[in-house]
């Protein structure tokens, strides 16, 4: 155990000196590793020799990193597995493991609030609303303020940064938009148009209580209709026959079955559907009011992590240009880092809204759960 700690720390110090991984090494790390070095001098020599003989390069990181994420982030060909294998081949002494609890972030919020142990080091895949929920539920923070120790955090596009406390670093974003069948309806163009008879029974949306795109779409309507006016707007949508299904899969499946000609989805829809023999008229992306609602996904190191450095190194790795390109392509979401172009099919078929909009953490804090509750009661009472 002591040796593992030591290796990790020395590694960070050395990396800072040699700038092998572009690590700038801040003051905190320097002091720490210096004191460790003096305390365990003999071990230092030992391990330096060992590392030198085994790989011929400087060993920097070792140990097991436990990453908590959602289940579709891992599996054959998924972004998580690419990150794992690349990170492990850059750091042969590191093993990356995944935890994918069914209830996602709630699992860790509940563990924290009940004093149960949290084994994961890093959470990958939380959005603004979830961070707000975590903070509202807990007296102590779940995540460490570590973004200044994550390389590349400052290269993330500023409009995607959603944590004012510097805990969560975004790694990709989706834009919520409509997907529609242009053989059946014209692009509605505006939120108001959705209330017109031309769009009667035309839209399938998702339940904002449990679906990410559903929640983002609701927030998008609040963004445009204000907290005072969005319920009236939704009464109008319900009167015009909107269908609200529980999650994205069901909604999209119903859309595929031609239950309705429009569905709330992502602006990357065509990335999946281009190709020979595919009828693209069924995969038109519609931005309302020339906007798309940005739903950035971020990663954050658990404050209880016993291997913070490893977690931060993994997060840094996820922000490098090659990782950003892979995450974008495999997760079918836009990269978060400024100036990264995934190229290929993604570059050709992913559509960005003219005006990305989103609520900030401060705007959601104290409001979002009330907005959703009011909305759900309104719909259910209809």
């Amino acid at each position, binding site marked *: 155990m002591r040796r593992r700690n030591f290796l990790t720390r020395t590694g960070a110090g050395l990396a800072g000196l040699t700038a092998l991984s572009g690590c700038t090494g801040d003051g905190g790390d320097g002091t720490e590793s210096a004191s460790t070095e003096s305390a365990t001098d003999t071990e230092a020599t030992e391990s330096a020799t060992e590392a030198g003989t085994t790989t011929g390069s400087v060993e920097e990181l070792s140990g097991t990193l436990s990453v908590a994420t959602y289940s579709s982030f891992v599996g054959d060909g998924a972004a998580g597995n690419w990150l794992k294998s690349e990170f492990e081949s850059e750091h042969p002494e590191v093993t990356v493991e*995944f935890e994918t609890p069914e209830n996602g972030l709630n699992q860790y919020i509940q563990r924290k609030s009940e004093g149960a142990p949290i084994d994961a080091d890093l959470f990958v895949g939380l959005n603004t609303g979830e961070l707000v929920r975590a903070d509202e539920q807990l007296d102590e923070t779940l995540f460490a303020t570590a973004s200044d120790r994550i390389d590349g955090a400052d290269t993330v596009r500023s409009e995607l940064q959603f944590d004012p406390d510097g805990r969560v670093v975004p790694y990709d974003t989706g834009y919520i938009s409509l997907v529609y069948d242009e053989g059946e309806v014209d692009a509605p163009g505006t939120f108001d148009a959705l209330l017109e008879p031309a769009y009667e029974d035309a839209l399938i949306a998702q339940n904002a209580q*449990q679906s990410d795109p559903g929640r983002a779409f609701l927030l998008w309507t609040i963004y445009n209709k204000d907290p005072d006016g969005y319920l009236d707007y939704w009464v109008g949508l319900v009167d015009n026959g909107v269908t609200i299904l529980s999650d994205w899969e069901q909604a999209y499946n119903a859309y595929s079955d031609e239950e309705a000609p429009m569905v709330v989805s992502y602006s990357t829809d065509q990335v999946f559907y281009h190709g020979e023999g595919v009828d693209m008229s069924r995969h038109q992306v519609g931005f309302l009011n020339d906007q798309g609602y940005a739903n950035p996904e971020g990663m954050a190191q658990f404050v209880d992590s016993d291997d913070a450095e490893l977690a931060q190194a993994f997060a840094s790795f996820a922000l490098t240009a090659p990782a950003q390109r892979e995450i974008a392509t495999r997760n079918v979401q836009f990269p978060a880092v400024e100036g990264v172009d995934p190229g290929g099919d993604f570059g050709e078929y992913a559509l960005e809204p003219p005006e990305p909009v989103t609520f900030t953490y401060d705007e959601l804090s104290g409001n979002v759960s009330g907005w959703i509750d009011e909305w759900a009661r309104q*719909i259910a009472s209809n």
Partner: protein
Amino acid sequence: MDARVDRLALPVGVIATLATLLVVFYYPVGSVLVGAVRVGGQLSLEPLGAVLGDPFYADRFGFTAYQALLSTVASVLVGLPGAYLLARFEFPGRRFLRSVTILPFVLPSIMVAVGFLAMFGRTGLFNDLLAVVGLGPVELTFTLEIIVLAHAFYNAPLVTRLVTAAWESVDARRVETARTLGASPLVAFRDVVVPQLLPALLTAAVLTFLFTFMSFPIVLALGGLEFATVEVWLFARVQNLALTEAATLGAIETALSLGLIYVYLRFEAMQLGAGGGSRSIDREPLLAGWRSLVDPRRLALLSYGGVVLVLFVGPLASLVVESVTTPEGQFTTDYYAFLLAQQASAATGTVQPVPAITNSLLFAAGALVLALPMGVVVSVVAARETRGSRIAEALLTAPLAVSGIVLGLGMLRTLVFGTELFGHRLTVTGPVAIVAAHAVAGYPFVTRTVTPALSAIDDRLVDAARSLGASRTTALLDVELPLIAAALVAGAAFAVAISIGEFDTTVLLAEGVDSATMPVALERYTGNRSLGPNLGPATAMGTVLLAVTTVSFVVIDRVGGRWER
């Protein structure tokens, strides 16, 4: 048999049953429900008051009961003719049909939803059929009607199965006696057969009402938010971590359900009379040449066959068709190739189909081995006419009365997070915990099928055996068990079905993907976008699940059938 074993067998069985229930049921559920009456460590009626005083929730409970009532009526209407057909007529494939009546029970709701949308959707097969005869189209999707239909899909087989078992155990000699005493066939049916079917029918109706009252995934999948039941709302509260409100909703649901179970058990106890060794009524051949075409009963059954084709075969066949069809309507084998690729993949986090099948079968076998004795023990307790035995039975049937979401939340907080005991944090997860949880979910079905059969046994038979020197245990094994074999087999099929179809606690208690079952694999594949956003891979897995479970149930019935008379 050794007298000591004899004396200890029942108490040990009761204690083992209670211990299992305590760990994987009462403690987890209690830890959640206590939140309904405790705020900040103090007893408080405030949460209950807040929910009961909220007109919105009054509406939710009202709607929930209303749709459950409609669903129960629909399930009975669809299920009863099936029991009549299976119990009274002989035809090729009857046994197979009886075996597979249980199939709907194991299907994950997501698959039923896919099948129903493909069958009853705007562009579905049903509307195509209507168009052929110049009718339709009907708009059924996301209406109350389709929810009720899907509930009937799940629960009518329950009615069919329980009533068929009761019908088959009606003593033919009593019917014949009534006839020789001058009763018309109708009167004999009313006076002899109906009283024996009624308990089974009521059991099925009460169970259907309970299930549909706490229905969650079907309403979520086919209904849309405006049809939210209490359970759907409870789920949303849990998602938002509004746990006090969730606990309160769960406590009210549980109280209502337990109350219903108690009233029903009182009624059942009054209904049961002595039955005993009997000879089943002979079945008539279903096909009786040209006369079939003019016999109103057979014509009615023929049209019933049409209903079955549309309501049961339709969605299942649509599911299979979906598994070989691209979104553009072309034939494809890609989704099965996907399953093979998953099987071949060694990537972390990949759920492989073959281990999922093996796990499902292993867990089901384990759950069966545990649930059968548990169910029989509870039945033996229930069959004793002592004070408080109805209350004891109601509490021992509680797994039927508690919301699956409350149970899941409780398991998460007590078993998965762990409980401090003597300074150690104990967690209960992994395959053994999964099997125990499945057994707890399944044993009430064993009890519900076995209790009526056990109570109907003529006490004199057991007394006779004992006076001839048989121990209590020997009497149970040699006299009673053969008499309740049909009920046991029915209960066993339910226990296996519950285990194979179970998703929520499995995924909660599983440690990583190694314990994944078929429904878990299916759920994972719905989220897999490697073939684009469509449910093809999931429908392929659903088809595999359908095939594996069909074979399992045929085997159970064949093996079990050897013990039946």
